[in-house]
């Protein structure tokens, strides 16, 4: 579909319009919005991993200056419905404030409302809570085994335990001469935006409207707010023109919203909660997956992997939330870019006394890719095969698309071998190997990391009915409305928030492309939830496909209408006119034309010139379902997960100072194919940022707990975010394999980089330490721990050598 030079604006290196407001400090972030008379919330949190709340004494706090109210769990639970959980787990109820039992250190127990945040914090310290500590469980294996239960009434710690078998797994294992099995661990980390979650709610009892300004990124936010607060959805007005200061999946402050929404109604004043960093890290419920993968593969002597058994055990924290679904999305790319014929996949989510997980960039796909790529490396190692060669042998070939994987998704398009070849050529693979050997000769440890993976994109809801048959949602729409006003200006409306993805620029570009007008002349605005069309927010790498698609189709409707008006006014059949640069002309007599201004005037003012029955004005909407979606899963759990599949191939060189255990990334090359690129600056930026996230997850970031069940990495001195020092320059190798399912051939790229970087870093570190006999199957790989492992290996190798002598 995409041919270079085919587009006028799409794919050209245009500026990002949102940037202008950000560089002058004029973003409109949640904390910047301060309604008159707003009151501030601070939270009282549980200091124990599990405790019964015996009593709450608010009197001292209420007596303090500037304090309006202290809210506790029983009052809030009595007035609201429980928070929505994706799974069918009615005995794992969750409310914004703990109800009788707190289940993780940092869980909110009470909320103080005061004139300013400092006073609220003063009073929060004065709320006296009597706790009776309870036994707790932190480890997923232990939680799965039973024993200490996080939710007594649920009867176990297991929220989800489902085994899928796609294809003839047993037969394929029996027929394969080799098998390999190992366990790898993905540590608990997250994307940790620099803006914490913030929300302000203001209830107007006369209009019966709850206005909400929030740094939110989640589907079904107004709906869930209305349901929990027991008010009609038409009484909830979420303002989508709030700039979100980074999200990458986690800005899902539904519990925060219910809390301040209730308080605003209860107190009759606007109320806001802007998390501070401690609240954010401990009880903001934005931790990401923490998974054990037990992976077993069956393969032949050539390294062809025929079958895979994967057991993913996810420690989702204390409540169900949405996170168990992060075990579902990877089903749509469970075999990665490889032709594995059969798969058994066991997805297990257990609750523990840790902070609740939330959706994190890639929604479980990055950990799964890591597990798969670690496994492919080990298979290569076992056979003594080159890690590149084994990937080449197993990868789906360009001519095999669309390619149906065992779990029911058809990959749309791809050219994996070409991308790999381009990366190798760019990097100079032989020279890279020579460089590794040179480094090793100087006494350093050095390793090459390789990772190939897919980015399922066009986020759809298919994992919901897959993991919870009571949910029948089969598409996640997105929409665009376009109006051309009576003087001819174009305004496009989008219906959700953005967190830096440049959606306004994308919509402008797409509308400009279709209508053949300068994209900078297209105003792009955001509706609020009371006048919006359906959207499911920027999740699952979907907006280029979904919002881009909706904008395309809406613009097309405008164009079609202009063409119809012109043909009618010119008195010629539709087939005889053509649209060019905003005007329409008679193809048989190009002088006979109707200009943009004339057509707009006719549409708005000269109804007598319109074709009979045509609606006057120039306002259209388009609501788009996800391409290839719409089907329910089969009984054995096969479903088309997402429509499009981007590809990335990472090739990196890492050195490790053996005395310190400190890894350093010396070279980072990424081949990236997300189909047609709508805006190169945006795609490149998101990819670079994704790699930085991946490096963080691989080497630095972990929500570590101590044996007392307390989160010990709860501030930015202990939870380590990569700085500019830690992120190396990245060389991007671009390739375009358009998708047949999208309007320009575009695929998603919002999760790119992050999907493969952890696997690539793990691959490189393992390659570096393999000569010492070390295998590292756990992320993050922290400096001192790696240093200790290397020292132990050197010591025991030296002992062995001595024995040998």
């Amino acid at each position, binding site marked *: 579909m995409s041919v270079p030079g085919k587009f006028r604006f799409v794919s050209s290196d*245009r*500026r*990002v319009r*949102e*940037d*202008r*407001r*950000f*560089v*002058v*400090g*004029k*973003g409109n*972030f949640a*904390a*910047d919005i*301060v309604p008159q008379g707003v009151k501030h919330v601070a939270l009282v949190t549980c200091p124990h991993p599990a405790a019964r709340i015996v009593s709450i004494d608010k009197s001292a706090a209420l007596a303090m200056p500037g304090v309006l109210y202290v809210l506790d769990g029983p009052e809030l639970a009595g007035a609201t419905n429980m928070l929505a959980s994706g799974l069918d787990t009615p005995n794992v109820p969750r409310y914004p404030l703990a109800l009788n039992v707190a289940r993780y250190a940092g869980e909110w127990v009470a909320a103080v409302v005061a004139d300013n945040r*400092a006073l609220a914090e003063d009073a929060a310290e004065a709320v006296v809570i009597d706790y009776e500590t309870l036994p707790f469980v932190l480890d997923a294996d232990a939680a799965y085994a039973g024993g200490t239960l996080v939710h007594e009434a649920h009867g176990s710690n297991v929220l989800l335990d489902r085994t899928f078998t796609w294809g003839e797994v047993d037969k394929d294992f029996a027929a394969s001469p080799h098998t390999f099995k190992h366990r790898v661990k993905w540590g608990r980390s997250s*994307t*940790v*935006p*620099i*803006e*914490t979650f913030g929300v302000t709610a203001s209830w107007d009892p006369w209009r019966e409207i709850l206005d909400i300004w929030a740094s939110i990124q989640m589907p079904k936010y107004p709906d869930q707010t209305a349901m929990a607060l027991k008010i009609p959805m038409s009484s909830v007005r979420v303002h989508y023109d709030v*700039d*979100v*200061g*980074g*999200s*990458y999946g986690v800005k899902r402050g539904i519990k925060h919203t219910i809390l301040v929404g209730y308080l605003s109604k209860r107190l009759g004043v606007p109320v806001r909660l*802007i998390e*501070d*960093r401690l609240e954010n890290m401990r009880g903001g419920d934005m931790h990401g997956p923490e998974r054990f993968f037990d992976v077993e593969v069956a393969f032949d002597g050539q390294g062809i992997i025929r079958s895979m058994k994967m057991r993913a055990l996810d420690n989702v924290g204390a409540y169900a939330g949405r996170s168990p679904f992060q075990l579902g999305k990877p089903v749509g790319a469970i075999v990665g870019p490889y032709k594995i014929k059969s798969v058994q996949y066991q997805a297990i989510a257990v609750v523990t006394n840790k902070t609740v997980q939330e959706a994190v960039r890639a929604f479980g796909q990055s950990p799964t890719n890591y597990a798969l790529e670690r496994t492919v490396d080990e298979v290569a190692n076992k056979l003594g095969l080159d890690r590149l060669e084994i990937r080449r042998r197993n990868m789906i070939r360009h001519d095999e698309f669309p390619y149906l994987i065992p779990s029911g998704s058809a990959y749309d398009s791809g050219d994996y071998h070409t991308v790999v070849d381009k990366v190798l050529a760019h990097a100079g693979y032989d020279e890279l190997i020579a460089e590794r050997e040179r480094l090793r000769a100087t006494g350093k440890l050095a390793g090459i990391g390789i990772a190939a993976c897919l980015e399922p994109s066009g986020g759809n809801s298919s994992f919901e009915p897959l993991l919870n048959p009571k949910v029948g949602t089969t598409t996640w729409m997105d929409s665009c409305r376009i109006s051309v006003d009576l003087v001819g200006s174009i305004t496009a409306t989008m219906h959700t928030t953005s*967190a*830096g*993805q*440049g959606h306004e620029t994308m919509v402008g570009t797409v509308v400009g492309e279709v209508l053949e007008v300068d994209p*900078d002349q297209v105003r792009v605005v955001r509706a609020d939830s009371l006048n919006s069309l359906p959207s499911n927010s920027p999740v699952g790498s979907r907006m280029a496909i979904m919002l881009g698609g909706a904008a395309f189709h809406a613009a097309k409707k405008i164009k079609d209408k202009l063409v119809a008006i012109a043909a009618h006014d010119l008195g010629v059949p539709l087939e005889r006119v053509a649209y060019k640069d905003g005007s329409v002309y008679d193809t048989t007599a190009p002088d006979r034309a109707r200009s943009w201004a004339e057509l707009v005037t006719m549409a708005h003012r000269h109804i007598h010139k319109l074709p009979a029955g045509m609606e006057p004005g120039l306002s259209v909407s388009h609501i788009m379902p996800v391409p290839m979606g719409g089907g329910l899963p089969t009984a054995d759990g096969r479903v088309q997960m997402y429509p499009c599949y981007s590809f990335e191939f990472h090739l990196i060189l890492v050195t490790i100072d053996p005395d310190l255990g400190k890894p350093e990334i010396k070279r980072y090359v990424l081949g990236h194919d997300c189909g047609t690129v709508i805006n190169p*600056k*945006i795609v*490149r*930026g*998101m990819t*670079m*940022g*994704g*790699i*930085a*996230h991946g490096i963080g997850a691989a080497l630095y970031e972990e929500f570590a707990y101590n044996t007392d069940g307390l989160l010990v990495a709860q*501030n*930015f*001195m202990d939870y380590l*975010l990569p*700085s*500019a*020092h830690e*992120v190396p*320059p*990245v060389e991007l190798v671009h390739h375009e394999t358009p998708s047949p399912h999208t309007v320009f051939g575009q695929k998603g790229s919002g999760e790119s*980089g992050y999907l493969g970087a952890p696997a690539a870093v793990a691959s490189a570190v393992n390659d570096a330490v393999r000569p010492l006999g070390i295998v590292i199957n756990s992320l993050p790989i922290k400096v001192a721990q790696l240093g200790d492992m290397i020292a132990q290996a050197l010591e025991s190798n030296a002992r062995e050598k001595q024995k040998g002598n």
Partner: protein
Amino acid sequence: MKVELNINNATHAVEVEPRTSLLDCLRDKLLLTGAHAGCEHGVCGACTVLVDGAAVRSCLMFAVQADGYAITTIEGLAPGPGELSPLQDAFCETHGMQCGYCTPAMILAAHALLSKNAQPTREEIVDAISGNICRCTGYTQIVEAIALAAERMRGQNDPVRP
């Protein structure tokens, strides 16, 4: 307490509690919301402002300590309504941001660097922004923006408008 602050070349008398950080004072009292709270414990750098030309963390300074200094916030950098400084323009040219939350601080840190060093190396740029965490970009396009601005400010290139 009453404190007189010189911000963006204008004097403001404000009444603050001693515990009010310069950051909160700028945002809440003076409505200069370009400085952002990220961690409030001095690590992320999102609250960076210039104090006598040097980049500092406004969350680690109390407003009552800030009298008598020339304080520059992001609001003081643009030459006029709708206009951008060369550095701001360069950030737009390379798309040296995504969500925009760390951006004002990043630009001020870069501004402090370029005012002392017209021809910074990549390492110097990286070091100058290493106290400012960005979670969106992986820093690549930020480093490029600062290098581009330095080049343009040395007169080797003229700003282009889109």
